[in-house]
């Protein structure tokens, strides 16, 4: 034990059980980490390791891969699918699924383009209508799900087809509508980058925010005599985040920099992270995913939670569709088609969201979509076409689900399923 007899404080309220190993200091932290991994609480470890492997391999195959220009592209490509994946995380948390996010995103893109270009409505109105289309679809799904008890994968499979049809209908005979290049929306997605100075300010704010919330937590816990992390550990973590983010931003700034669209995605991830981990609503999402009947008996309005999950996933799908259309400067019949659907679901699962419900974080969407887009970008750089991309993405998805299943089994053998 690394505990010094001299300095050891009176034992914390939550550390008094004699069976509990006293993990203190850095060694304790490392040991606790390996224990958690062995017990199947893998968290973001597999995806982080996977990302490093993928980046190394592609960099060895093509030195352009890790170039600043390519990474800037990667971040921009990630945003639309990442936003959709954020919704998928929500619906997977309550142990349901939405297979129609691709179609819904395509429909939202079509609605946006028709209202903006064909009808000549103001951008704000078109945007609002496109996004509310998604929300309305989510509301419809949730009502069907709650009233008739049809499994969500059937409802959304039907939705996948129906809303694809609606998308084609809305687009009309032309089948494709170009968005004007001078539209603020298109500029936001294509050419709007954070000024270098502001990007560094944001990095400092992020690190400061981490430090601030960590400090508040330590203080609150110390006041109540609970075990708490050390200030030194917190400082080290904050500095690491500062340095890591700082370097990433510096590297991106060597070419075009950090796109506002990517910042929007990150902001959404952070907001969802807060909502899921620090509010009663988030707790309820995990509870419903873990044991819906127990959640109901605890007084949670389970139907409202399901509704919120369905509405969120469709709304995020619509936002993702709008961003994709903006990036492409067009909405057409293949908007939201192809691999968008599976990429979004794969991203959420690869990022560590369990298909079995009740497990996952908002960061899963970020990490997962980086993996998916890295594979896609790397294969494109190698001049391999979409056939390979589909195969590789499929294999990676299977791998991610395998890790989920294995860690689940490991959790149950360690009694933490």
């Amino acid at each position, binding site marked *: 034990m690394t505990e010094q007899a001299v300095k050891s404080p009176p034992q914390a*309220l*939550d*550390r008094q*059980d004699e*069976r*509990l190993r006293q993990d203190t200091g850095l060694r304790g932290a490392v040991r606790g980490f390996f224990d958690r991994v062995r017990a199947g609480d893998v968290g973001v470890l597999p995806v982080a390791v996977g990302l490093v492997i993928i980046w190394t391999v592609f960099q060895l195959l093509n030195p352009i891969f890790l170039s600043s220009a390519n990474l800037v592209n990667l971040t921009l490509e990630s945003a639309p699918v990442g936003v959709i994946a954020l919704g998928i995380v929500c619906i997977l948390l309550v142990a349901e699924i939405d297979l129609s996010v691709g179609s819904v995103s395509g429909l939202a893109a079509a609605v946006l383009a028709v209202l903006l270009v064909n009808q000549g409505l103001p951008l704000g109105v078109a945007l609002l209508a496109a996004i509310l289309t998604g929300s309305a679809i989510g509301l419809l799904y949730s009502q069907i799900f709650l009233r008739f008890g049809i499994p969500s994968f059937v409802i959304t499979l039907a939705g996948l087809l129906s809303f694809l049809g609606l998308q084609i209908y809305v687009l009309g005979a032309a089948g494709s509508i170009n968005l004007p290049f001078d539209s603020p929306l298109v500029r936001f997605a294509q050419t709007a980058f954070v000024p270098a100075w502001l990007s560094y300010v944001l990095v400092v704010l992020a690190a400061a925010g981490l430090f601030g919330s960590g400090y508040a*937590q330590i203080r*609150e*816990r110390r*006041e*109540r*005599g*609970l075990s708490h992390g050390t200030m030194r550990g917190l400082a080290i973590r904050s500095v690491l985040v500062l340095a890591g983010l700082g370097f990433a931003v510096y590297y991106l700034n060597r070419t075009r920099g950090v796109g506002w669209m990517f910042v929007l995605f990150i902001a959404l991830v952070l907001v969802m992270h807060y909502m899921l981990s*620090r*509010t*009663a*609503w988030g*707790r*309820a999402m*995990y*509870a419903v*995913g*873990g*044991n819906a*009947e*127990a*959640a*109901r*008996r*605890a*007084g*949670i*309005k389970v139907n409202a939670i399901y509704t919120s999950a369905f509405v969120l996933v469709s709304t995020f799908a619509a936002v993702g569709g709008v961003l994709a259309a903006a990036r492409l400067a067009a909405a057409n019949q293949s908007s939201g088609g192809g691999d968008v659907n599976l990429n979004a679901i794969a991203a959420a699962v690869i990022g560590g969201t369990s298909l079995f419900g*009740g*497990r996952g974080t908002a960061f899963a969407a970020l990490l997962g979509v980086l993996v998916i887009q890295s594979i896609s970008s790397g294969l494109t750089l190698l001049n391999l076409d979409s056939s390979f991309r589909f195969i590789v993405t499929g294999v990676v998805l299977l791998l991610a689900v395998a890790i989920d299943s294995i860690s689940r089994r490991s*959790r*149950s053998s*360690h*009694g*933490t*399923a």
Partner: protein
Amino acid sequence: MPSTSASSDERTSARSGSGSPILSLRGISKHFGAVAALTDIDLDINAGEVVAVVGDNGAGKSTLVKVLAGVHSPSSGTLSFESREVTVPTPADAHALGIATVFQDLALCENLSVVDNLFLGQELRKLRLHEAEMETRSWDLLRQLSAKIPTVRIPVAALSGGQRQTVAIARSLLGDPKIIILDEPTAALGVAQTAEVLNLVERLRDRGLGVVMVSHNMADVLAVCDRVAVLRLGRNNGTFDVAGLSSEELVAAITGADDNAVTKRSARSQPRPGATPTSATTTPTPNPLTEREPDD
């Protein structure tokens, strides 16, 4: 309706000091399709009183508990809470009235930690969870129950059966309930924890709460309860004052006969002639000396 006899209520009214019950059930029935799980149940729960609900497996005890907790709505009958007629369509409504329940199947979320489960649905600061305060209160609660839980940050899935039961009991104590319903609270508990839960039941009674305890353990029932309501095949089979009630009489009421496996067995193991009644009575009539008015 015959009025309550003064003598039979002496013990409870002395403790509670108030005449009218907090919760009273009149003619509660519950059908699951063709199965009548509960038929015409009458029951009163007074403040500062522990009422045991006993009965064989499948007698309808848990169904009764779930009706009170808002999990099932009764097919017919009325519930009155503090002399107002109420309906409890959802568990949230039961919580709002001040009815807290420990279910037989515990109803915990295995993927959530102990603290999260304890405060599920009644978190402190909904929009910015007060984790530290919730953890502190969790420790206070668990200590009251002499819970042997190493850390409250692990998922409930990692706990033993008895530890989970303790968590479920601790959860019912949060949020100042007026009535606590315990469905076989000590079924999985160790010796010390069982004693602690029984002590707790007595403390709750002394604080003026109404406690409903479902139990198969006659010794526990006779030790802490004031009254015993016997369910048999979904019907009231009498309500007894515990004072002066023997465990044989209780068993007879539960099984509906003086001649049953339990009495035969105890007769065999202690072959003292006349120690236990052995006459074969098939009518489900409990000892008339201790039976109270059915609609008391």
